[in-house]
């Protein structure tokens, strides 16, 4: 691990000979030196925690952390955007939005007043596989915070008036988001990679789908998925385990267990090469997404895939960063991530660049996907990526919420709980051969999903020149995330295919 520190400096001393320095520092006699050796390493232990299951099936994790006199309550429900009923995009998100907009015992304003007056914080939201509700409260407000959490999660009113109010907010927010290249690129990319799999649709819904949501849709979603045996609660902070369990039992102990519907198995589509350009003529940059179907979190190849994609575009090595930013100044930032979900996952590289450089950037990025598959990675790169991950571990358990995140991850993905203690060993077990194997298995540079959001007039010719002959262009004003070709079906375009369910 320490070799990592010294190697670049050896290179630096060679470079210094060839390096015409225009700016010499203020200390003309500043001595030559090498990076100092580290001090003695400290032991890194995962902090103690307690995980229990209540008789009603609710999983509870408690982490005692006494530094600051606060407690945070983090609840995850095992249902999210992917559980939106067919065609009703945005239900899970609207359910989460309305949790704190009134319960059977408090109006929306009373919920807000309760948490604000106590100097607390309440937030709710959704992910692809989950919904969440978090409360932060000072230690003397534990009972109040826990009871409020139970109230909003168990007894939301879904009042029609509040639905109408939030619907108006969401539709207006989408109107703004549809002018935001970052948002547009992300949602088009998801649809492109996952097709009509539940992971392919936008979490907030579309303006059309949100307009049609009814109170019954929300009540039904809540009835199906909000149950103690479908949720995990982490209680973290300045309290004892007994205090935490007493508060949880008091607020959730009488919540009745119920059958949770099993999702129909839907396979994500096989990767195919498709380049979609969303034309936004006033854009000065092109927002770029590129990637393909990956693996779910529980896949045995998780660690090897994670390291491979990190070397492509993550902390510690980041080939894309070196090629695009360090060597050419083509972007402010570029990254690649392996997003691993419950049922599937994706590899996604993202960046943005000035319109004139779009073709060059696209070519360079695809070349890096090809290089990863063709050449794998070398020992030094893998050592760097491993050094980053293992060294970074103590930084990921610094605050009470950091610790809770680690525990919630393991519980949510049903991973072996001992994984929290064995992180370093699991990282270090991955070999260059493992990376080569997963690169060949999963990375298919001739079948990438590519999305470009920008001023197409400025770069369509460039795409041809760098080898992308088949490109689909959609005007931003015509964009529809629910059709095969991303165009509104009411357009007079013979190629448009009917909307899918």
């Amino acid at each position: 691990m320490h070799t990592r520190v010294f190697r670049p400096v050896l290179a630096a001393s060679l470079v210094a000979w060839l390096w015409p320095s225009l700016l010499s520092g203020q200390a003309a006699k500043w001595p030559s030196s090498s990076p100092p050796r580290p001090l003695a390493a400290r032991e890194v232990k995962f902090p103690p925690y307690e995980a229990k299951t209540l008789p009603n099936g609710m999983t509870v994790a408690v982490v005692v952390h006494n530094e600051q006199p606060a407690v945070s309550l983090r609840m995850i429900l095992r249902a999210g955007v992917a559980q939106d009923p067919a065609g009703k995009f945005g239900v899970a998100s609207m359910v989460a939005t309305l949790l704190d907009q009134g319960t059977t015992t408090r109006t929306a304003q009373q919920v807000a007043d309760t948490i604000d007056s106590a100097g607390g914080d309440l937030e709710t939201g959704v992910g692809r596989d989950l919904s969440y509700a978090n409360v932060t409260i000072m230690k003397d407000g534990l009972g109040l915070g826990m009871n409020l959490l139970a109230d909003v999660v168990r007894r939301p009113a879904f009042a029609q008036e509040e639905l109408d109010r939030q619907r108006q907010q969401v539709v207006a927010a989408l109107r703004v988001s549809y002018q935001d290249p970052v948002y547009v690129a992300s949602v088009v990319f998801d649809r492109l990679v996952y097709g009509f799999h539940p992971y392919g649709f936008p979490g907030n819904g579309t303006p059309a789908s949100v307009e049609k949501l009814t109170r019954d849709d929300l009540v039904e979603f809540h009835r199906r998925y909000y149950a103690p045996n479908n949720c995990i609660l982490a209680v973290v902070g300045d309290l004892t385990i007994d205090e935490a369990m007493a508060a949880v039992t008091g607020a959730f102990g009488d919540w009745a267990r119920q059958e949770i519907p099993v999702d129909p198995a839907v396979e994500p589509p096989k990767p195919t090469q498709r380049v979609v350009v969303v034309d936004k003529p006033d854009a000065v940059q092109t927002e770029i997404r590129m990637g393909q179907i990956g693996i779910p979190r529980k896949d045995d190849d998780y660690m090897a895939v994670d390291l491979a994609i990190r070397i492509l575009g993550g902390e510690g090595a980041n080939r894309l960063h070196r090629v695009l930013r360090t060597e050419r100044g083509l972007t402010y930032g570029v990254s690649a991530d392996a997003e691993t979900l419950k049922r599937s996952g994706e590899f996604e590289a993202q960046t943005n660049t000035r319109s004139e450089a779009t073709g060059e950037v696209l070519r360079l990025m695809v070349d890096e996907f090809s290089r990863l598959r063709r050449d794998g990675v070398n020992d030094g790169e893998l050592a760097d990526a491993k050094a980053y991950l293992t060294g970074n571990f103590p930084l990921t358990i610094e605050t009470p919420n950091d610790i809770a995140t680690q525990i919630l991850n393991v519980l949510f993905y049903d991973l072996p709980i001992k994984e929290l203690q064995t992180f370093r060993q699991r990282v270090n077990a991955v070999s260059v051969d493992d990376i080569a194997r997963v690169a060949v298995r999963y990375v298919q540079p001739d079948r990438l999903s590519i999305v470009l959001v920008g001023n197409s007039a400025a770069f369509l010719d460039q795409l041809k020149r760098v080898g992308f002959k088949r490109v689909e262009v959609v005007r931003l004003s015509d964009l529809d995330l629910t059709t095969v070709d991303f165009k509104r079906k009411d357009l007079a375009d013979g190629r448009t295919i009917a909307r899918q369910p």
Partner: protein
Amino acid sequence: MRAFRATLRGVLAVSCLLALFVPASAAVRPPKMNAEVATLPNGLTIVLLEDHSTPIVHAQIWYHVGSKDERPGRTGFAHLFEHLMFQGSKNVQPDAHSSMISGVGGRVNAYTTDDVTVFWETVPAQYLPLILWLEADRMASLRIDTHTFERERQVVKEERRMRVDNQPYGSLPEVIYDQAFTVHPYKHTTIGSMADLDAASVEDVRDFYRTFYVPGNATIALVGDFDPKQAMALMTRYLGAVPGSERTISRDHPKEPEQKQERRVSLTRNWPLPVVVVAYHVTFDGHPDSYPLRIASKVLSDGQSSRIYRALVYDRGLALTAFGGGNILEHPNLFFAVAIVQPGRSPEEAEKALIAELDRLRNQPVTEHDLQRVKNQFARDYIIGRESNQQKAMQLAHAIVIHQGDLSTADGEFDIFMNTTAADVQRVARTYFTPQNRTVLTILPGQAQQ
């Protein structure tokens, strides 16, 4: 059926609680930070705070230079310079600073504000010598070649396109500050203009470096798992070796003249929905009035029970989003409120509603309920804002750099907030939230033109 009964029981339990619940005074206090401060012979200020709960250390070094110190025609330069600090020094090759840190599992970054430029690293505790060595090397011996400088200029221009030019509402702060200020350099934002970024030269880099990137203009806050004696020895060994500077730094910024009458401006931008901004000039960070102003910020805009959210978003559906608060900086800055107007509602309605909330602070004392709510939220922010080493270091360095070396303000301001009265809030509202001190901006969708 079982679920239904359970719900009924829940209802009863909760209504009992509601009846009993009255907002309490902030009984919970944030623990004090027992930091130590020292100054090296070369002028560098050091703040140390031990925290042995996790085997990591965080260092952040604040250079007291920001975009308000840029000379005319060089807007964006302080931030461009921040980028150059990663581009190599005598013993560190370009970009190696970041790769050495990530190579040991650490995190590293930097940011530039109107007032300061901050560089930080978090690493496993045993790498403390490495980060001090790296910071000393670039403080003493930065080296930039033309190629690197040119490339980094392009990177920063991409950053501007990404954050400002290609985002709906991305240039809103630029518009607000350009309209509300006349001569003080707060008139321009940190990212600067494309033309000025193009105009920057290597000569500018040299001059800026020699003036501002000197030990006497820097403060380093170190928080985490270290032995203080060993840490001081390492500080002295690495950062103490950087020569001090004889140059004096001019803090002679043009003073913004008092605004004598209301300014009203209407513009168009290619944004999806109209925006209304109401801005007032206010005082600087640390001025006695700054504390009630921050209380006023929270009365207006912290949580869904706060006044602007409730009036403009919840009750009347005037705004997609609306918020307001003081941007309290080293020099007098602005207190402003913003509303993005809902489709079908008029900017005039939104403007009236925003001004009505600011006027209400002038005309009526804040209720005891609102004041207590805000104090409890302050207590929360103090506590939640000190969970990580990085947050603690930021509070400590801020106290030293912005509050003229007064470390006690990092903890001591808590009591000032807790002792602020409704009369204090009303007094500052009457002082600052006047029509003649106000700039009202309306920005309508359309092709950008001044």
